[in-house]
């Protein structure tokens, strides 16, 4: 084997060419990693929303809570089964909520977008034990107070602790607290009192959805069968985790398709860049290659030597690209979720797997790009090569 120092030395000797090729691959890997991180961020945000032991009930045929509505009276029927967990007070742990959206002005642009407002009953924290207030306090039940998800905080005008949000003329809610829920999609919502939303949005006597905390995740099938078997209700039950997974599908798909198309074009470009660099590198080293061959190194050694060099080049680029993409960890990305028509905030979410995939992708780009030049070097006849310039 030809020692690796030969390769590192040779990359260092051609600083400009090496730097441009490294930068090219770094940019490609950056974009690749960023799109993977964004897809992961979407999945994390919506995937973390919901619990497997919670059943969500919406009107049959509605795709989402926002378009669903049914009689408030049915909530009692939904929650009365034995598979629904009961609180210390003996009441079922379940909620009937109203979901609406309001148009608000985005901070830092003249754009507007829809923010999801959830009308929640008093026992919301009992049903969602993972939700914690991080600043301020809980809203007093039955008042025009609201709590704000920490991800959406500050991204819209008036969405800040102590500010008021106007729901309709002469009816505002005051934000008295900020809540977190482990990075879930709920953090992109404003939670108001259910009756406030009901009167402000003319939803008397109805709810958008109901949620039931089940005795265990396995009680789900029983719950689903019971609620759906009553055809008069016309309701549909989904596991909360699955519901949110479905909500993320179209958006995650959109980013993934776009990211893949872009990554294909980009990696083709980067491979061409690596190929040009390696061809030049081989061409200027004909004599060296001839000498190595004369010293007894096999064609295979030459081939692998140049492949290693090319992979090394690409890996350096990949490392820079990954580092760059990690810097995106602090960037918040917010856009409309197609499934809910409301703004949802994501972060770029790095995982070891994504970084691994990106590094492997960069090594592959190097190997593919370097293969033909390496082959050319390996096939050189030693005599010709030593004679040549």
């Amino acid at each position: 084997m030809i020692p690796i120092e030969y390769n590192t030395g040779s990359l260092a000797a051609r600083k400009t060419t090496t730097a441009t090729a490294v930068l090219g691959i770094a940019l490609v890997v950056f974009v690749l990693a960023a799109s993977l991180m964004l897809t992961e961020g979407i999945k994390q945000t919506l995937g973390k929303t919901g619990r497997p032991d919670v059943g969500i009930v919406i009107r049959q045929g509605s795709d989402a809570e926002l378009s669903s509505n049914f009689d408030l009276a049915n909530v009692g029927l939904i929650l009365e089964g034995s598979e629904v967990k009961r609180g210390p007070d003996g009441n079922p742990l379940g909620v009937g909520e109203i979901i609406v959206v309001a148009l608000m002005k985005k901070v830092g642009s003249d754009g507007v977008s829809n923010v999801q407002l959830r009308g929640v009953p008093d026992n919301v924290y009992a049903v969602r034990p993972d939700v914690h207030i991080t600043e301020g306090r809980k809203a007093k039940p039955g008042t025009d107070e609201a709590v704000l998800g920490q991800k959406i905080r500050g991204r819209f005008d008036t969405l800040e602790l102590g500010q008021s949000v106007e729901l309709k003329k002469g009816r505002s809610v005051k934000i008295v607290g900020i809540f977190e829920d482990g990075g879930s999609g709920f953090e992109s919502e404003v939670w108001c009192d259910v009756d406030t939303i009901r009167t402000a949005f003319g939803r008397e006597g109805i709810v958008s959805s109901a949620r039931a905390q089940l005795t265990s995740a396995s009680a789900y099938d029983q719950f689903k069968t019971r609620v759906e078997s009553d055809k008069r209700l016309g309701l549909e039950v989904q596991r909360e985790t699955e519901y949110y997974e479905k909500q993320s599908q179209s958006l995650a798909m959109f980013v993934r398709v776009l990211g893949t198309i872009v990554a294909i074009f980009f990696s083709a470009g980067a491979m061409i860049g690596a190929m040009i660099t390696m061809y030049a590198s081989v061409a200027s080293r004909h004599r060296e290659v001839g000498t190595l061959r004369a010293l007894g190194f096999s064609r295979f050694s030459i081939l692998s030597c140049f492949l290693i060099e090319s992979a090394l080049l690409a890996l350096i680029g990949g490392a820079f690209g990954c580092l760059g993409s990690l810097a995106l960890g602090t960037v918040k990305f917010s856009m409309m979720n197609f499934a809910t028509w409301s703004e949802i905030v994501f972060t770029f979410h790095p995982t070891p797997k994504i970084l691994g995939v990106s590094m492997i992708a960069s090594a592959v780009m190097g190997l593919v790009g370097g293969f033909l030049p390496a082959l050319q070097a390996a096939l050189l006849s030693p005599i010709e090569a030593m004679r040549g310039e």
Partner: protein
Amino acid sequence: MNLGGVAANNLRRNKLRSALTIAGVAIAILAFVLLRTIVEAWTAQSSDVANDRIVTRHKVTFVLSLPKRYVDEVRGMKEVKIATWANWFGGKDPNHDTDFFQALACDEKTFFEVYDDMRTTPEQLKAFKEDRQGAIVGEKLLKRLGWKVGETVTLTSQIFPGNWEFHIVGTYEALKKAVDPASFLFHWDMLNERMPKAFQDQVGWIVARVGVGSSAVDTSKAIDDKFESSDVQTKSQDERSFQQSFLGMFSAILTALNIVSAVILGIMMLILGNTVAMGVRERTGEYAVLRAIGFLPRHIALLVIFEAGVLGIVGGGVGLGLAYPFINLGMGRFIEENFSNFFPFFRITPESGAISMAIAVGLALCASLPPAVNAYRLHVVEALRRIA
């Protein structure tokens, strides 16, 4: 032979490298055109809309509607020529559950007068007005779902319970890029009748056209002022601002696409600059000889810049040549057929083509500047000594 000829000939000396570079530039330009087309297809909708149409919605949220009497009040305004209204229905064909399209309950009498860029035949329009269960379906949607005029179809809705039966009495053709060619339109009365009492006589939004001599902006304001003291307040915008504010909700994606476009151009410059720089390094001796026989530094620099320019022109040309069939015939058709509600028009515009070509050449020239400067500063004696 002039300098340009020499430059072009230089590219033939390392054919493989030139070919690779041209391929790199071509791929970058292809990707750039594709990304631009996505952005343009998205924004085209706002640049191509009628600007004498005003959309009036609920001020706070699209989930709430307006009292129907507002339509008459808007119609009574002197600035308004004609007004109509519609409600979002959220229809689905139970046989094609995942196929999303826009189904609207509209006023059959006035809708097509206000939307005169949706063209239907007088006979079909007459049939639509006479049949209470009648529906007019966009040509694209008809084709996509395999329906025929004269057929009876059953839809369900994400919002309203039950089955809804309609007779397809006609189709319409979208005359503008911004018009969705795949909507489903039916009588508003059908929807209103089946609503619970408390939710009757509500309209989703009102669309008004302003008369000659009135401005859309002033009229929008006049409408909102009119309802300012009412219980339900409105937000009116001309169609362009309406579309733009909708696009604004996706601005993060558009920003990301623009950044990515810039990155691909950066990669292209790196590839091109690298090739030119390598050429300059290899030909240092020749340049020294050229200088020694009387060529000026600027001649040498021009030689380098010309070389890059040729690479840019050829690469850009090849990229565009690939982009046209790929986008306009392949992908674009598929997208227009299947995603017409997001992208009713997905094709390379002439401006995009021209801009991409200009960028290919412009960036090629920029990329050639550092090597050109090096060539310009060439120290003749040194360079000659090095090869001696």
